[in-house]
């Protein structure tokens, strides 16, 4: 990623997608949840995954950091490369992968410990020194737009925070371990409109440095925050394009019906 001098490179570096998915299928027993999906994700872009409930978008995002392995009974076929490395290769340590490809869930998953300890969680897993931890916690909270709100209460229980703050804390926690990619699985679906607004604003900040992949059932949100959008339907990738194009002049009939609200 030699694009540091060009922070507005929203097209990314065409030669090296940060994640590249080829022929991905996921099976639960004999049922195909995802079939033959190929697409690429670029650094410093927000990619939205849209589609009706049950289309496989959550399963898809979970394949990207091998979280599918946490739920038993799922079989993954095809390849996913993270900067050229096949992440399903035996040699890849899923722990290290998940630190590079961080994930935030639908409902905030703060741990029952202090705000500071929540953000420090991933750093302590890799035994960072105390001074590094302190520095990174503050920096991550600042990036997640929480530092000013919470700086006097860092040792308060994170469970006392509001839902919106908890979700941004989860983002800060993922940022602390220095990821390249952030996977957000419907991060605002449990939040009220003003908290949603804050998270969306945050996405614009984050894409200056990270590749952001967001699953959303809210098409307006996809249109607002993303550079590219992938539309999934019944486990298949129907269309993948720049967001503006996909919403304004979709090539597929199915996409058009969905984005104009005719089903879903």
């Amino acid at each position, binding site marked *: 990623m030699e694009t540091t001098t060009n922070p507005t490179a929203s097209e990314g570096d065409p030669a090296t997608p940060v994640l590249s998915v080829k022929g991905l299928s996921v099976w639960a027993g004999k049922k195909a949840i995802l079939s033959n999906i190929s697409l690429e994700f670029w650094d410093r872009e927000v990619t939205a995954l849209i589609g009706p409930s049950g289309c496989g978008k959550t399963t898809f995002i979970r394949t990207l950091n091998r979280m599918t392995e946490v739920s038993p009974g799922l079989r993954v076929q095809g390849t996913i490369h993270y900067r050229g490395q096949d992440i399903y290769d035996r040699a890849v340590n899923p722990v290290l992968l*998940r630190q590079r490809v961080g994930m935030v869930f639908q409902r905030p998953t703060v741990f029952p410990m202090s705000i500071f300890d929540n953000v420090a969680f991933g750093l302590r*897993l*890799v035994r960072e020194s105390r001074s590094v931890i302190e520095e990174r916690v503050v920096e991550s909270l600042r990036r997640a737009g929480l530092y000013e709100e919470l700086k006097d209460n860092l040792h308060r229980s994170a469970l006392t925070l509001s839902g919106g703050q908890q979700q941004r804390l989860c983002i800060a926690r993922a940022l602390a371990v220095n990821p390249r990619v952030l996977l957000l699985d419907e991060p605002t679906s449990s939040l009220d409109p003003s908290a949603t607004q804050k998270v969306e604003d945050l996405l614009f900040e984050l894409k200056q440095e990270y590749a952001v992949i967001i699953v959303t059932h809210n098409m307006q949100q996809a249109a607002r925050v993303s550079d590219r959008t992938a539309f999934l339907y019944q486990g298949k990738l129907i269309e993948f394009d720049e967001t503006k194009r996909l919403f304004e002049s979709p090539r597929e009939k199915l996409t058009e019906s969905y984005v104009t609200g005719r089903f879903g």
Partner: protein
Amino acid sequence: MAVSESKAATPADLVTYARGRLLFRVIVDKAMGWVLLLAFVAVLFPLADMIYWISAKALPTFSVGTLTLDQVGTGGGLHSMIIGTFIILALSTTIAVGIGVLSGIYTAEFAPRRVAAAARVAGYLLAGVPAIVLGYFGFYLLVIYTGWDYNTLAGGITLGIFMVPFIYRATDLAFTNVPRDQREGALAMGASRFQYLRRVALPIAMPTMLSGIFLAMALGLGETAPLVLTVGWSNTIPQTLLQPTGYLTGAIWNFYDFPSTYGHFQTLAFQAAFLLIVIVIVLNVLIQFIAERYRRKLRGLLG
């Protein structure tokens, strides 16, 4: 005035009505309150009476010597039995916590669904084995078969087996109840399963687990049958774990039928009973205290 007079007539109608069905309802309502109160008293009274009775018998002769002197001849105190009780309880708790916590975590976190279901049934069965049967098993295996004769270690192990299912069930429940989100959140941070268990699940499961451990200790403390058949009896503190020892429930068992005119054996039995009740109450207060403290800490997570 005319208006207020007509209003005043209305409550009178209601009073008249209360003589019919409403009166019946009022009576049932009151009666039910009394019956429930009576049931409550029926539970509380024996407990209060028992504590009073035992205290009345134990306290007048209770002295420092009761705690510090070994029982010698027809005199002395409970010293060696108190120490014996704590040695046995320490042994059995160590064994039961080790086995119960590890197998509980295995059942909740690692076991395939069918194995977990079978393990839970086995846990219930073990909890249902009568203590005297367990004692007989301990006697046969640890006293006779090993050739150790009556000894403290055999009692500790047998009592430990008695305590395992309570700790096992509490641990299984505690880890099963950790919200799924927490696991996903931790694994998505790159935590290994072990790191998730230690740093996230354990603190959440701790209060339920500790309650189970203290409950098992309180129950184990009061058990007599597994010990009578395995530990034997001694008036002095055992020099090794393979010697017999005295213990508080054994003091009651051995001394309760001595004539009250012969030595102070009956008094010792009452003092042992008194100490047991005090220790059990302390353990229960501890359980409540821990539960309350953690409930506050985890508010908002477990609902």
